[in-house]
């Protein structure tokens, strides 16, 4: 699923990486625990999380994940956005809960890892 489609489904705002919305992700993983992300994500998946700190970006970077969606209306600060931009990671945020955001994406065809 293309990132622009994900943006549309979640009614999300893009905070950085707008130029990469044509990138495709083949799966998604929703979690606030970064060790679980490191343990379960097997491919270049989309990360949905409510953890708003630099470790979300660092974890995504370790796994070559191309996009993070911050859920529950959480807004990352400028340091986090700068880190993501430097690593080529698109960042979005949406007001949905993690459950609803995951559900909308799943029912639109984006499967879990």
């Amino acid at each position, binding site marked *: 699923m293309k990132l622009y489609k994900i943006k549309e489904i979640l009614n999300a705002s893009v905070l950085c990486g707008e130029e990469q919305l044509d990138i495709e992700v083949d799966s998604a993983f929703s979690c*606030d*625990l*970064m*060790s*679980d992300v*490191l*343990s379960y994500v097997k491919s270049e998946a989309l990360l949905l*999380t409510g*953890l708003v*700190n*630099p*470790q*979300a970006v*660092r*974890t995504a*970077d*370790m*796994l*070559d994940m191309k996009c993070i969606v911050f859920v529950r209306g959480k807004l990352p600060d400028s*340091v986090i956005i700068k880190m993501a931009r430097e*690593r080529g990671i698109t960042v979005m945020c949406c007001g949905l809960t993690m459950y609803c955001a995951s559900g909308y994406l799943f029912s639109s065809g984006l499967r879990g890892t």
Partner: protein
Amino acid sequence: MEDTIKLTYEISGSDLLQAGEASGLLKLRLKQLGIPQEVIRRVSICMYEGEINMVIHANGGTADVEIGADDIFIWLKDTGPGIPDIVKAMAEGFSTAGKKARDLGFGAGMGLPNMKRCSDEMTVTSTVGHGTTVFMRVHIGKSADVASGRLLHASPATPGYDI
């Protein structure tokens, strides 16, 4: 690739914003060297989990990395409180981490098991009150997932545990 490359990273335990920086730098270096992506992924997870452990449990430490033709070796050394029961610490879900770890999104008791899963060899040596050293080896030629069900060999006569 050139002969063995030796790298050292000092890991701060006080600056949480920097936690994971050494892992990012190592990942970048491995990319520059043309190491296969799946190997980079495994090394990155080993290093990152280890780095976070050092930050949250031991107030930082040192990471020494050797990149050879066939293998990547990592030694993570700290002078923290040590691990009283390494076998217990290796169990998925076991954690002694506090608020600092959870604020970072860690502390779920998956760090050491993740490191074990992503390395081809791992040894934990620890003395309570003096610190911990974790050694890991990742084979460059092996890109498939490693077996996760290897036996844990623990000898009470020696402080090192081959995992």
